[in-house]
């Protein structure tokens, strides 16, 4: 084994694998991974240019200092900005963002699961049509669609009008947590539905029949078989909804008010209005760390449980 696992680059130096050793398989695996690298190259370049490089810049900025005139001084390597993360305003905004994101994820799950289940159990034709319906919103810009919600939820909008017509007291919908969560659910629901659909579609329904055969009623069969087996979809969908909701910028900016600021807006304000780039960068790094940890913990706990 040890000999065959040495690097392949020493041309012809490798001894031929003994017949009962998996040498050929190792060779094949290596060739496979080389091919994989080649295919992955474009996206690797893309990731380096558009993700790793900007991330490195933000990383460097987060250790920068502010001069007395408000300019950013790099190369100081100070932890001042990180120390300021514990201030009450940041904590309040973080807690709020967390709350909105969790609520959004939960609502997307509750709304998306039945729909994904319905979708996955239709005939191929109906399925295709419904999938197109799920994806139609992507054909127009999120900004435009969110502005549409602003009109709909406004004090002259149909919802407020309808409530008034029913004799209920006038309520403020726009610029409330309700508007933000609604906007987030609206924006990210497809990210929940698609992985759920993929997971449920893969599910072997004879397992549900087996559960029913073994005296489970419909609900028990769902709880004991369908739900645990669709968990990978639940995990993937939840992460895909939670992460962008937590760092959302467009939706809270358009539908929220001054008392519903979320982290995304706060970070932007540090860069643009407060001109405190090191603090904004430190905030970004912290958010990134939180998301990374969330994703890892979540995947560890459920994603590979099958």
């Amino acid at each position, binding site marked *: 084994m040890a000999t065959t696992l040495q690097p392949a680059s020493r041309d012809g130096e490798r001894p031929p694998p003994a017949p009962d050793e998996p040498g050929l398989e190792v060779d094949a695996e290596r060739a496979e991974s080389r091919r994989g690298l080649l295919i992955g190259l474009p996206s690797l370049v893309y990731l380096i240019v558009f993700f790793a490089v900007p991330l490195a810049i933000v990383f460097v900025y987060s250790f920068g200092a502010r001069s007395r005139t408000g300019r950013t001084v790099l190369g100081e390597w100070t932890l001042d900005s990180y120390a300021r993360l514990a201030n009450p305003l940041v904590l309040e905004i973080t807690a709020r963002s967390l709350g909105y994101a969790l609520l959004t994820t939960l609502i997307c799950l509750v709304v998306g699961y039945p729909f994904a289940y319905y979708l996955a159990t239709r005939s191929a034709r109906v399925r295709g049509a419904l999938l197109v319906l799920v994806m139609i919103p992507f054909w127009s810009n999120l900004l435009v669609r969110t502005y549409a919600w602003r009109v709909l939820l406004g004090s002259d909008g149909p919802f407020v009008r309808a409530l008034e017509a029913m004799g209920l007291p006038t309520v403020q919908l726009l610029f409330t947590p309700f508007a933000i969560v609604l906007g987030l659910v609206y924006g990210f629901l497809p990210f929940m539905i698609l992985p759920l659909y993929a997971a449920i579609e893969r599910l*072997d329904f*004879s*397992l549900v*029949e*087996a*559960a*029913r*055969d*073994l*005296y*489970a*009623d*419909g609900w*028990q069969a769902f709880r*004991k*078989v369908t739900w*645990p*087996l669709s968990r990978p979809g639940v995990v993937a969908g939840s992460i895909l909804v939670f992460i962008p909701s937590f760092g959302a910028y467009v939706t809270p900016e358009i539908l929220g008010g001054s008392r519903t600021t979320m982290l995304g807006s706060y970070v932007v304000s540090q860069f643009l209005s407060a001109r405190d780039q090191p603090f904004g960068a430190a905030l970004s790094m912290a958010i990134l760390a939180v998301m990374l940890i969330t994703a890892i913990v979540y995947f560890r706990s459920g994603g590979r*449980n*099958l």
Partner: protein
Amino acid sequence: MGEVSLGDTAGTAHPTVAPAGTPAVSIDGVTKRFPGPKGGEAVTAVDRLSLDIVDGEFFSLLGPSGCGKTTTLRMIGGFEYPTSGSIRIFGDEVGLLPPNRRPVNTVFQSYALFPHMTVERNIAFGLQMQDVADDEVRRRVAEVIELVQLGGRETRKPRQLSGGQQQRVALARALVNHPKVLLLDEPLGALDLKLRQAMQLELKQLQERVGITFIYVTHDQEEALTMSDRIAVMDEGVMLQVGAPEEIYDRPRTRFVADFIGDTNLMTATVVDGRSVEISDGTVLRVANDRDVGTDVTVAVRPEKLGLRRPDGERDTSLDAVQGRVDRVTFLGNAIAYEVTALAGDPPVRLRVRQGNAPGVEHFAAGEEVRVRWVPPSATVLED
């Protein structure tokens, strides 16, 4: 198999008392139609099926793929509902009852083991769903694990087991519930030949030990013949014949049954009277029939029931015989197959003969003239 049998606790699900002699399952005029694809013509999967399955028997549904076996089984299990007709289990109409309210369990074609549960939890599932007490569950799971010889693999996941072991888990998962009837849909289909043959024997012994009625679906005629007390042969949703394996094999009623089960010779003949028919070379054969004189019928006779003699030998008048010439000889090891064409007749009768390769059995060569003879009850008139 282990030295245990299922406890005498009655099936936990439905402790009903049926009068003695009540069929385990009674299918009465059941038809199942599926809507055709894209509004096309409806598919009749099962067509006016009537059948009584006796308590404690090993009953097989046999037929080619697509003949409606699975659909029949699924209607008994409650996964499909009949378009018309009635199904009773120990006298109780099961009509539109869901599967969880029927005293039957199923061994699914691809086992359908829960991939996220261990062997133990798979087996315990049915008892837990019936709210059986925990120590009772443990006791019965242990008992059935011993019965199917899965000891030591309790905490494995299904994908860590071989096909044969998975098959045992599926069996145990159903048997642990002490069902009154066990439904099995080609349970050995995924196993290789050697294992399949071993499991056939084991399954049959298990069924005898636990005394549960087995309804067994297969397209493998040999499997059905080996294991069953009775067999129902189906084709295109219609049941063609039901009976003991010997009866089905020796007295096939239709061309399809004769052909589907084993190898057979078919001869066209004309009815002479109620006890004899005449074939194309003018030979009169003693075959009992209830047809009108002069009608054309098909006579079937199995190749291994035929014997070969020299044409000049002394005639045994208790046997029916046809004079012919050997066209082809094939050595099969345990037997020798001959193809013989009658000397006269238009078209001449052609017969395949299979003689066991035992010492003292005379061999013939292609081109030789022979007499093909058999005991009269070996031949039977088909209905079609």
